[in-house]
């Protein structure tokens, strides 16, 4: 016997089949001996279990009892969502200002560097040379040359007929 037929027989015993399916199962029972044998076994089992089943009496109707469970579930779901939203908002509250502050600091640092370097065309130390500036050190004579790409039209020492010194 197919398992599906067995399940239908079980449902028939429990009275859970629609009318037209119940009629089919009834016909099957009349014509099939194996189905009848299984039906007898199922009825015996049902009768045995029914004698030992605890009877639980609800103080309210079935509908009200389940509606209470449904309301409890609905109450729990918004709480979980609220906790998640709160955490996310908390994270954003901290992260966005921190990120903005970091961006401002970065801009300030870059602007500071640009401002410092724009005060004078060239600013050098022993360690750093501007890309437009040539440096040379003669260690033997202790002489360091810094060659500025200073605009020719602004010459510093160009002698002039009227005022040299």
């Amino acid at each position, binding site marked *: 016997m197919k398992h599906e037929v067995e399940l239908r027989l079980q449902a028939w015993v429990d009275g859970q089949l629609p009318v037209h399916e119940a009629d089919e199962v009834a016909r099957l029972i009349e014509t099939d001996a194996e189905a009848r044998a299984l039906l007898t076994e199922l009825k015996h089992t049902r009768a045995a279990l029914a004698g030992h089943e605890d009877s639980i009496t609800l103080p309210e109707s079935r509908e009200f009892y389940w509606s209470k469970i449904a309301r409890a579930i609905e109450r729990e779901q918004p709480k979980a969502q609220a906790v998640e939203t709160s955490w996310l908002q908390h994270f954003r509250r901290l992260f966005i200002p921190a990120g903005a502050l970091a961006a401002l600091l970065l801009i300030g640092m870059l602007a500071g560097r640009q401002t410092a370097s724009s005060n004078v065309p060239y600013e050098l130390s022993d360690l750093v040379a501007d890309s437009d500036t040539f440096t040379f050190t003669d260690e033997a004579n202790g002489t360091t040359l810094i060659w*500025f790409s200073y605009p020719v039209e602004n*010459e510093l020492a160009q002698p002039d007929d009227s005022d*040299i010194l």
Partner: protein
Amino acid sequence: MRLGALGVLLTLLLALMPVTAAPGDVPSTPTAASPGGKMKLSAELIWGTNDESPDSKLKPIDPKVAKKLENLPIKWKHYYSVTVKELTVGEGKTTKVQMSSECELVVKNVDGTNVEVQLIGKGKPAGKVTKGLGKGKCLVAGGDATNSTAWFVFIKQVE
């Protein structure tokens, strides 16, 4: 949100980057400091040209200075002294020296051994350099002038 994340990331990267010397940093090379941290310096404005000087008032530079310039990768035939100024700068102090009608020097004694020299041409900053000027050391700052000539400021510590 993404901008914030980028800002945080870049700031962290910058914070984790090793500290490098920036323009204007004071060199840490130790040199002999003068008593009291004062520095007596000599600054000479020099004009370099391949032609003879059209002005007889201009004198050739001291041979010792000329020899130092000859060892540098600059090849002008003649170097004329325009101005020589001596200045004494206390530690942490700054002195301004007029080298010509258009050239000014602003010299700062950083720590008794390092000087910060700012060159000003026609009232505008031309460049700034920080250099240790110990015994026997000198600084030559230069640049192009008109007609394939050049200007130099030769700075050394006077004993």
